[in-house]
């Protein structure tokens, strides 16, 4: 049995409890009574993957069906991978400890571009052909993917049988039902894929054939096998009633998000022009306070966690935020549970809200200002004024805080040296503000941490057309920022620009990148999001060998009328809207948030109802 072989070597590796299952809340079924088996794979290690909320939802949801069994599977750490390869242990799922190659579905969630090579590595470890075209015609081992990255799945197209666009709560079960039905009829893989392509939200890449122009851009996409020309993402219409688990798998080892997490809203009203999540998760939908409280209570009682976090893109945009927090705090305080609230925005950070947060935590305050000058913040539609930032900092300082963390991006469209210097100047003004406050924390200096990411233009944002700054431009800006900071009260950290370059290529790339990903993986690339495993030299070699010019994807402006690799996907937001927003950005004009005024992104028309 595989279990014995695993156990024989488990004590040779770090944190063995990650590889053996048996956690409280994990769901074990009798395999002889199961019709369809689903391996939910997260292409990173257990500690990271177990923190992913989407997996928790879809895991519990699928397992509600008696005859379906969803199990978890993660990328093994380097030490355990070596053990697996040496002892011929195939990649297995944690509930049954059965090899995932024997499963009906092998489903990956694609959360970030830098996990792509891990998919290939996991398929290889499982003994499943990495290329979809090399898999058997038999109806088994359907390799699928979902998650935000599949809004442009083309760089992954050769490795997957199909992609699920949008929210998976309904469509996953529809796919499994179809599979179950066709399996009984003895259908082939292609039969299944043809039928699956008719389900809304399902994209079968092999039915779409790309023709390129001489200049490298896309000429047209030929569709075969009756598959739809345009694939629309799936959404849950009644978000308040959507399935939410009453229990989580509670890991033994500490994971990144080791707490109960309850989703309070989906979508975002803000429309920050760089933010992919802000567009691809539309429309904005909320859960009622009662639903949220009920879910928090059930999860705390069933898991035994003493910490809860509210998950959303912008929690303070919930229309019932004040009563919600009041009601939640009643429960959490009496049960000695910590409540944490990530994703708070600067502009609606009220004094009463701060009072409530102070009851539950005393850690640092983090603000995403994103741009150093008002002009640039207007360009990116981060509707936050300096006055609001200052006001919030004042409330925070008067409330006893003495350190503030500020997030910025570098390399934003239209950005000049002035905007970079503006970051340091903004920080300086926050320091001055601190010392001008009479009742500031006594005997403590102020500490401003500036964290600077490199801007990565992403599909389905108004900036999808934008080029990324070249490495030289970024290095110049990084140096300029360091030179502009003249006090030890400000700490600056920034990202490796090579990582951001790879990210933009994988995000905006087309099907020709499949062979680059394959080549890079063959050269040993995996865990690209981990500093210690990131080998840019190997990637550059892979690009070179495959004859791919990185600047074509990274540093070129995509024309408005160019066919983009993701143009045949309908994420409800129209391309016309994105173009309009792009033009508005270049005029340094802002667009109000959706609650103030509808900007006509197209979502409400397609969904057939108003957003609010």
């Amino acid at each position, binding site marked *: 049995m595989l279990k014995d072989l695993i156990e024989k070597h488990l004590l040779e590796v770090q944190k063995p409890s990650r590889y*053996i299952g048996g956690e*409280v809340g994990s769901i074990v079924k009798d395999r002889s009574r199961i019709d369809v088996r689903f391996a939910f794979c997260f292409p990173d290690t257990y500690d990271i993957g177990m923190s992913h909320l989407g997996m928790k939802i879809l895991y519990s949801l699928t397992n509600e069906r008696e005859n379906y069994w969803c199990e978890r599977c993660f990328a093994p750490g380097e030490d355990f991978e070596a053990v697996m390869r040496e002892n011929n242990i195939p990649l297995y799922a944690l509930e049954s400890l059965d090899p995932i190659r024997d499963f009906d579905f092998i489903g990956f969630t694609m959360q970030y571009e830098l996990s792509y090579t891990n998919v290939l590595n996991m398929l290889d470890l499982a003994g499943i052909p990495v290329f979809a075209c090399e898999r058997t015609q038999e109806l088994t081992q359907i390799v699928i993917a979902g998650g935000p990255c599949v809004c442009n799945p083309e760089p992954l197209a050769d490795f997957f049988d199909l992609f699920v666009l949008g929210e998976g709560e309904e469509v996953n079960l529809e796919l499994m039902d179809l599979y179950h039905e066709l399996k009984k009829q003895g259908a082939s893989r292609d039969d299944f894929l043809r039928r699956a392509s008719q389900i809304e939200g399902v994209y079968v890449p092999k039915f779409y054939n790309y023709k390129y122009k001489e200049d490298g851009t896309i000429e047209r996409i030929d569709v075969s096998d009756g598959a739809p020309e345009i694939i629309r993402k799936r959404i849950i219409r009644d978000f308040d009633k959507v399935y939410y688990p009453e229990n989580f798998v509670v890991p*033994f080892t500490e994971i990144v998000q080791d707490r109960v997490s309850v989703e309070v809203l989906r979508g975002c009203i803000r429309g920050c022009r760089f933010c992919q999540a802000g567009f691809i998760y539309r429309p904005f939908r909320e859960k009622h306070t009662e639903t949220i409280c009920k879910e928090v209570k059930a999860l705390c009682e069933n*898991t*035994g966690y*003493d910490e809860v976090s509210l998950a959303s893109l912008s929690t303070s945009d919930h229309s019932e935020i004040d009563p919600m927090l009041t009601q939640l705090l009643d429960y959490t305080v009496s049960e*000695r549970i910590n409540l944490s609230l990530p994703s708070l925005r600067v502009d609606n950070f009220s004094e009463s809200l701060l009072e409530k947060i102070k009851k539950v935590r005393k850690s640092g305050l983090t603000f995403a200002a994103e741009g150093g000058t008002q002009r640039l913040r207007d360009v990116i539609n981060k509707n936050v004024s300096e006055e609001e930032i200052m006001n919030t900092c004042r409330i925070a300082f008067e409330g006893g805080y003495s350190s503030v963390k500020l997030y910025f991006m570098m390399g934003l469209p239209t950005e000049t040296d002035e905007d970079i210097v503006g970051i340091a100047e903004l920080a300086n003004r926050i320091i001055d503000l601190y010392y001008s406050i009479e009742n500031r924390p006594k005997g403590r200096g102020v500490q401003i941490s500036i964290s600077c990411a490199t801007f990565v233009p992403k599909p389905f944002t108004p900036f999808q057309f934008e080029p990324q700054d070249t490495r030289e431009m970024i290095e110049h800006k990084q140096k300029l920022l360091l030179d502009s900071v003249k006090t030890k009260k400000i700490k600056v950290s920034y990202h490796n620009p090579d990582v951001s370059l790879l990210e933009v290529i994988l995000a905006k790339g087309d099907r020709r990148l499949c062979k680059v990903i394959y080549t890079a993986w063959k050269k040993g690339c995996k865990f690209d999001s981990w500093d210690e495993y990131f080998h840019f030299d190997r990637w550059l070699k892979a690009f070179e060998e495959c004859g791919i010019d990185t600047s074509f994807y990274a540093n070129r402006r995509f024309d408005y009328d160019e066919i983009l690799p993701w143009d045949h996907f309908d994420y409800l937001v129209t391309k016309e809207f994105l173009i309009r927003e792009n033009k508005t950005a270049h005029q340094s004009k802002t667009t109000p948030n959706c609650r103030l005024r509808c900007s006509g992104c197209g979502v409400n028309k397609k969904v057939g109802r108003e957003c609010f």
Partner: protein
Amino acid sequence: MIRVRATFEKCGRARYISHLDLNRCMLRIFRRSRLPIWYTEGFNPHPYYSFALALSLGFESCCEILDFNLNEDIPFDEIKDRLNAVMPEGMRIISVAEQKQKITAITEAEYSFSLLSSDADRLYDDINALLALPEILMEKKTKKGIKTVDIKPSIKIMSCEKSGDSVNMSIRLPAGTQTNFNPTLFTDALKNMSGVDFEVPIIRRTGIFCENNEIFS
């Protein structure tokens, strides 16, 4: 408030729960059981519970000790049942009782294991030869760094029998707040000395004792 001592088993997949993780795991077990666990007073109140001895990662045990306080007087059997209802696979409360002895009374612990070898006869002889040596010097990691210790006087062989391809042993070693010897010190000494290849699949702690061979309770 009542002071309670639970004896529990940690077997099967639960043996991969490290001591640090066990702490967190126990907290969640208490919360799931909804037992009125007593919290420490002071600036940062936290539920009070403690394990008598740490168990090495990978070891099984049928005699782990967990002390905790409850705010209400609840029958021992009910405490046991409520905890067992929410325990992870491989962990089980065997008994709940009052705390008789102090943790500091612990002097030794007993471990059982099998040594598997294709040449069990020679291995058996080597074990006896090892134990006949005047001293067995081993390097031991302590808080102050690596120290060389003579483990010979501390090893109490409770049983040692040959059976087919294995030698089954039961030994007692110093344990408690003062000195703790891990049974791997013994098996490593044997590995260093013997030319026979062997494997020790699972080490199991089978008893915790005080002075005069009294079972700790």
